[in-house]
């Protein structure tokens, strides 16, 4: 019997990511398949290639997307196969967090296999820098956090390691939004597109607080890559960075250990919201029976507990399911996995709630507000327009 050949397109190209994706490949090969890797760096790029390959009649067996609305158009065009039977067999409905399910289950069918959960708004801090500034505990409130930033500043370190690129600005904003505005407001604005909520004083306050961070970033921040910002924390040049959990890879590369050299917390206090994002694979439509079999096998293998934990450990993410062997995971991931058990703390990130177009428009609004002298009121108006604009 020839192995089930599966071309898999994804954008995991760095060393750590390669190690992670290898877990999937090994698992798949062991399960009787043959993994053909198609790595393409850059998420936008990779998705564009996938689109074109599908159009040109040369689709991969599986293609990576973010767990979001990105592939909604594919479904509407009837370009994807569903994996309903795998989902049913694997009891996805029960084991997966609702925000993920919401993204992959469209019109009652499962069109994607989620493979990891990223929390894009962790707070990483340098223990050395905190020591230097005389801070001993993680902040429990937003106000406390601001005070700590001020202390760090006084101690001569850059308080907030910040990469001034739109997507990083957006992550930071969403973190603040979730913390300061609360989950309700967050959902009202992002999910329900509630104009009133956007124009509310509470939202205005979120904007104001967000902008306060501007006082704690250094002059070199605009355009900085996230990993350069992380490097500042690694070296103790900066105090805190708000970044996705993939940043742990940089700490690891510098041989720093969570809890020892640096700390991580997902928000302020025990009830802080936990923003959920992640990656998923979709399965382009094909009539080739073998390919369909391969797709199902892939969906099954990639969501299996063993592969999940092996993958997440190397990727810096957390598994999509709780029933895994946590010992392989690091401190932060274990913390995340624990939080995931509390469904009330989960918040979907914007990509899951709004179309890529709208998300982009929001980024435009935020970057302007962050970088220019725009009043919060004007930003509110722009925000409301961007949300309305479909």
């Amino acid at each position, binding site marked *: 019997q020839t192995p089930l050949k599966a071309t898999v397109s994804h954008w995991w*190209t760095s060393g*750590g*990511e*390669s190690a992670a994706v290898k877990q999937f490949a090994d698992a798949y090969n062991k399960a009787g398949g043959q993994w053909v890797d198609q790595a393409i*760096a850059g998420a936008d*790029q990779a998705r564009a*290639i996938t689109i074109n390959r599908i159009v040109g009649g040369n689709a991969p067996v599986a293609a990576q997307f973010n767990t979001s609305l990105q592939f909604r158009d594919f479904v509407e065009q009837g370009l994807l196969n569903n994996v309903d039977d795998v989902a049913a067999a694997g009891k996805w409905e029960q084991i997966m967090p609702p925000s993920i399910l919401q993204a992959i289950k469209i019109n009652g069918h499962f069109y994607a296999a989620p493979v990891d959960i990223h929390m894009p708004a962790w707070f990483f801090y340098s223990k050395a820098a905190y020591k230097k500034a005389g801070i001993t505990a993680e902040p429990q409130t937003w106000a406390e956090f601001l005070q700590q930033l001020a202390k760090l500043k006084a101690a001569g370190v850059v308080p907030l390691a910040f990469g001034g690129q739109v997507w990083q600005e957006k992550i930071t904003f969403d973190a603040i939004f979730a913390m300061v505005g609360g989950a309700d407001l967050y959902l009202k604005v992002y999910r329900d597109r509630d104009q009133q909520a956007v124009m509310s004083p509470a939202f205005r306050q979120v904007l104001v607080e967000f902008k306060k961070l501007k006082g704690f970033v250094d002059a070199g921040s605009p355009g900085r890559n996230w990993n350069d910002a992380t490097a500042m924390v690694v*070296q103790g040049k900066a105090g805190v960075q708000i970044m996705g959990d993939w940043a742990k890879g940089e700490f690891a590369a510098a041989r720093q250990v969570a809890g020892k050299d640096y700390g991580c917390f997902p928000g302020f206090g025990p009830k802080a919201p936990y923003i959920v994002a992640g990656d998923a694979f979709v399965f382009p439509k094909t009539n080739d029976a073998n390919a369909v079999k391969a797709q199902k096998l892939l969906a099954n293998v990639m969501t299996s507990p063993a592969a999940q934990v092996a993958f997440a450990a190397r990727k810096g993410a957390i598994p999509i399911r709780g029933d895994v062997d946590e010992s392989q995971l690091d401190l932060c991931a274990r913390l995340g996995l624990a939080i995931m058990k509390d469904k009330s703390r989960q918040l979907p990130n914007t990509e899951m709630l709004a179309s890529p177009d709208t998300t982009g428009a929001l980024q435009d609004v935020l970057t302007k507000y962050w970088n220019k002298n725009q009043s919060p009121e004007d930003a509110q108006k722009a925000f409301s327009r961007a949300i309305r604009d479909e």
Partner: protein
Amino acid sequence: MDHLIDHDRIAAAPRPRRSLAWTPARIGVYAFLIVAALFFLLPLYVMLVTSVKPMEEIRLGTLFALPHNLTLEPWRQAWSSACTGLECDGIRGGFWNSVAIVVPSTVLSIAIGAVNGYALSFWRPRGAGVLFAVLMMGAFIPAQVMIYPLVRMLAAASLFSSLPGIIIIHTIFGMPVMTLLFRNYYAALPLELFKAARIDGGGFWRIFLQLMLPMSTPVIVVAAIMQVTGIWNDFLLGLVFAGSEHLPMTVQLNNIINTTTGERLYNVNMAATILTSIVPLALYFISGRWFVRGIASGAVKG
């Protein structure tokens, strides 16, 4: 008195080659060139230095400093073990694919551009002017906008995901500029040469191949510089149209450099970038002797 001055002059006159004398003007020339060269080399210096530093040193952010612990590991890694997805074979993997794409694409696009330019400046077939105008407009459409319809066309012609497919695509995208380049070059040649060749009974192809092409070396060099560089460095079109068996080297390069959320190894990135550029750089260096002087010399009084 006159006598003496004459002797002085003779003594002072640099005997062998006047043109190499160190006049103030010449010193100025060299000063300008050296300053310009330094400016141009600055980024390369940073790239080179970065490529031989370990990551710890790079994180320090001392950009211009020479490496403390010089390491060639990044180069080795870039060449043979950097990961792009599952494979960790460095950038060497696509080298021959790139060659297989670049050589025919460059030759074909230059050939077609030269023929077009030649026909446009000397023969002016009816309607060619309009075609050329539209072609030039086409140069301004972002290539990415064109990809989708082109994919469908090539798929319809069963050329999608094949070597001929990507060669055709590069030829299409190169055509406006190549045509323009050659058209303008030929427009500057004396028309009498063309007339003489017509009298000699030269037809369209003869005149082109035996008279115009030999006179085109400088512009062919420029065209080759542009096409080889452009096609060698392209990865988007290669990625979309070449099919997975023919992925060019730059796909690996891009995969190594362009990671979004994985860790970034700047030293490997720089080494990989420099390594990938070796082929065009070699071309630049070699091309020099083809910039000959005085093409029109002796052809026409004017």
